[in-house]
């Protein structure tokens, strides 16, 4: 039997740390990188007698998320205790939500694959709920003991649960990426996966197409998209191999080992999973008024999906370009500002410059787009000058370099100033170009001969010479035409 006889069923549970200043149930700071246990208050270390008080900012972010995915924000939700013993869980229970979560339902559209094979898919979400993060157990060995740091204990988490709608690791990664972009877009999570702000658990099972759901295994704590994909691929293959060998899949929680590329079972006992959920008597129900929801709705920025649709419908961009530009709110905002300055008719060239030269340069310099030395207005100015033939594309690259280096001043007219200062205006006077072409033809008889002999490459060499002679300013299209004409072809 081949791999294609199996259908893969994947659901993701993603834990996004909310970017509040303080913890979900205490006033300690959530800032990353503090010395161990210096950001663990009495409530966080569960001293006898302490009590939780809910952080408004965490709730606000949950509402924002619910609205962004078109979910229902529950008017009343309840916090429940999830009881289990672990050194990084000081109370011996985690305050979470069980039967009545704050966000119910919702969906997100993902784009899978590249080029012609790319397709869109809607992934439904089951729920999202608020809970507190646990502390950390350090792997470092303290003469046979483990060290526990409770700084992270109490950081607010939004646990986002998808329906088992994904059918491949590619879809799972696309979903995770889309969610990652969204939580950053609506500014509820910084998405820093190295710091553990965004963690994925994948529930994976396989089944015969049309058959009943297989037993799933949960891969925990994947903190990079690459690991997510590798872990799922390995697990799927392992499950298929197991089943095809006549074995059965037992429900288990597994960890992914990036070094070996394999998943392996966690060494925790089966009955650790009787969490004995019950509503936390230290907290009363969370009530969210329609007024609060309406206010958050009103404050939501334009969401990536809507922006992308607008870029396609109103600006005529391709779906691929629109997706790339809306990968981050910052890039989308930059592009929008550029188009606003340059005019909608120039949307495509603006898109190309933002996604191409600008993005490339920012990458190389390791800069965020917010710190770009070239402003949207300045870039728009550049694009306009290409469009109105003032400069050629090649010259434009020179101008861009100059803009990057701060030449031309801070104003929107920086491109113009650079063009004037360096005399970069394109030469479009046919007479002038003809003169240069004549000179070049005269000076390069060998290339002329080679061209006449059929070597197309020689033509390019001649074009190059003309461009050189004109110091790049001759309009390339005209150069082409005139050369061809004069060469009699």
């Amino acid at each position, binding site marked *: 039997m081949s791999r294609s006889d199996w259908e893969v069923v994947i659901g993701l549970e993603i834990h996004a740390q909310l970017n509040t200043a303080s913890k979900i149930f205490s006033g300690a700071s959530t800032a990353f990188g503090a010395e161990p246990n210096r950001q663990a208050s*009495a409530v966080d270390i569960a001293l006898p007698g302490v009590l939780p008080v809910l952080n408004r900012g965490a709730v606000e972010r949950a509402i924002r998320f619910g609205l962004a995915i078109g979910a229902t924000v529950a008017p009343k939700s309840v916090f429940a205790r999830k009881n289990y013993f672990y050194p990084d869980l000081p109370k011996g229970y985690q305050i979470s939500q069980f039967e009545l979560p704050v966000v119910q339902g919702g969906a997100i559209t993902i784009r899978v694959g590249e080029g012609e094979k790319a397709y869109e898919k809607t992934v439904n979400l089951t729920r999202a709920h608020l809970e507190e993060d646990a502390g950390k157990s350090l792997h470092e060995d303290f003469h046979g003991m483990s060290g526990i740091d409770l700084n992270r204990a109490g950081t607010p988490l939004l646990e986002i649960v998808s329906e088992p709608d994904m059918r491949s690791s590619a879809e799972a990664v696309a979903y995770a990426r889309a969610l990652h972009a969204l939580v950053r877009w609506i500014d509820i999570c910084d998405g820093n996966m190295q710091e553990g702000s965004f963690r994925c658990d994948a529930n994976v099972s396989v089944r015969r197409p049309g058959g009943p759901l297989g037993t799933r295994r949960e891969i925990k704590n994947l903190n990079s998209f690459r690991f997510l994909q590798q872990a799922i691929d390995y697990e799927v293959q392992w499950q298929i191999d197991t089943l095809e060998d006549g074995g059965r899949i037992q429900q288990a929680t597994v960890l992914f080992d990036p070094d070996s590329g394999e998943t392996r079972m966690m060494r925790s006992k089966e009955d650790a999973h009787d969490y004995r959920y*019950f509503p936390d008597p230290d907290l009363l129900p969370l009530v969210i008024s329609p007024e609060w929801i309406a206010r958050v709705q009103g404050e939501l920025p334009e969401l990536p999906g809507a922006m992308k649709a607008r870029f396609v419908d109103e600006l005529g961009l391709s779906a691929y370009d629109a997706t790339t530009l809306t990968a981050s709110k910052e890039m989308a905002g930059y592009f929008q500002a550029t188009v606003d300055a340059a005019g909608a008719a120039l949307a495509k060239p603006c898109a190309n410059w933002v996604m191409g030269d600008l993005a490339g340069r920012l990458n190389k310099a390791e800069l965020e787009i917010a710190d770009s030395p070239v402003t949207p207005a300045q870039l728009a100015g550049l694009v306009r000058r290409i469009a109105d033939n003032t400069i050629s594309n090649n010259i434009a690259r020179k101008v861009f370099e100059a803009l990057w280096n701060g030449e031309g001043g801070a104003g929107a007219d920086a491109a113009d100033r650079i063009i004037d200062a360096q005399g970069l205006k394109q030469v479009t006077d046919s007479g002038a170009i003809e003169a240069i072409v004549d000179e070049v033809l005269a000076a390069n008889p060998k290339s002329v001969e080679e061209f006449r002999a059929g070597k197309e490459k020689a033509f390019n060499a001649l074009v190059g010479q003309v461009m050189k002679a004109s110091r790049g300013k001759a309009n390339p299209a005209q150069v082409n035409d005139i050369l061809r004409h004069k060469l009699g072809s």
Partner: protein
Amino acid sequence: MINAPLSELRRALDAREISAVELATLFLDRIDAANPALNAFITVDRDGALAAAREADARIAAGNAGPLTGIPLAHKDVFCTAGVLTSCGSKMLANFVSPYDAHVVALLKNAGTVMLGKTNMDEFAMGSSNENSHYGPAKNPWDSTRIPGGSSGGSAVAVAARLAPIATGTDTGGSVRQPAALTGVTGIKPTYGVCSRYGMVAYASSLDQAGAFGASAADCAALLSAMAGFDERDSTSLERPAEDYSRDLDKPLAGLRIGLPREFFGPGMADDVRAAVDAALAEYRKLGATTVDVSLPNAQLAIPAYYVIAPAEASSNLSRFDGVRYGHRAAEYGDLADMYEKSRAQGFGAEVKRRILVGTYVLSHGYYDAYYLKAQKLRRLIAEDFRAAFTQCDVIAGPTSPTTAWAIGEKSDDPVQMYLSDIYTIAVNLAGLPGLSHPAGFGAGGLPVGLQLIGDYFAEGRLLNAAHRFQQATDWHTRRPAAFA
């Protein structure tokens, strides 16, 4: 001075007839003499008390005294007190010096009270006799072979033997009212949410409430007024304007309708208790109150419901005691699971372990609906019974305890026997209502009998008023055990 009411102590302190230091010393010396026999105190903090007394004297001298400035008191050892041992009567916390003050402790500190020490209690507030203490039982000052009640046994004994004029306690199923009844003092548990639970080590979160002990309703009113109030660190703390519970103490009782639930006057009550209670009710009628029969049909379900809800919440609340960050850690252990299991087995006493096991079981997979959810439904029925009863009366009255104090060891082998002694008090916690017990006379062997008054939500003032008027017309509350007169 030892037997003076708070009003008299206040007058004497303000008139500089006695200093706070002298007053504190009086009580501290009494404690030194009596505590070995009574075991009311786990910790006596002489140095701290005298320091607080000196500060109080300065405030009094500066004319900045409040109602409780310079007044000595004792705190039940379930309240976290910064720098002073907070043991909760348990080996688990026998080394726990809290780094912070409970809200109630801070309020009383700011009010200028002088903490003499921390009182004995049933471990983690689980018990009705103070026999479940790692530090040994507290003794009833009326008969030291008998229990004082629990879980706030030590605080009740301290006030009954006048080792402290007032003391704090906590009441989850009757743990202030019942020891008050068995030791002949007055004790009140306010409406759930009136006092902050921050720093009050949790037993059953939805039932626990801080309470006040005093020799009289008037003294309780003064203490409760200083303890009550909103605390933003407790999500179950109620945002209400501050109340002076002493304000209406003297209101005449004419027209007060006292409801007598037939379920509280059944065969479970001992004869000597019945006689004292009947006589007390007759006294109330003389004061102008009328009595009316009411019914609390689901009252007998209060005990089974409580012994599901309280252990369930406790089993979770006590999970933090794992030997990792504070408290007892076993001296020898193997792996992590072993450390947990040994630390907790060694740190907890038998009754606490039993309740944790019961609670763990009733919450476990498959049993939640039949037990915990069912108990919460019964709870609503019980609360509704009270609501219905209060349409026919202003307060509900009855015996606080079915018997007077029993002998040490008599019920300690049978947990269920012990649980049944809470039969009249427990329903009040389930409903979250205020309840008070005041001395109503004596039973066989000269042992105190308490009358319980139960009020509607936020009726603490009315309960204290009724008890105060009773105490103005009678003198049960002034009696002292011969050894401590």
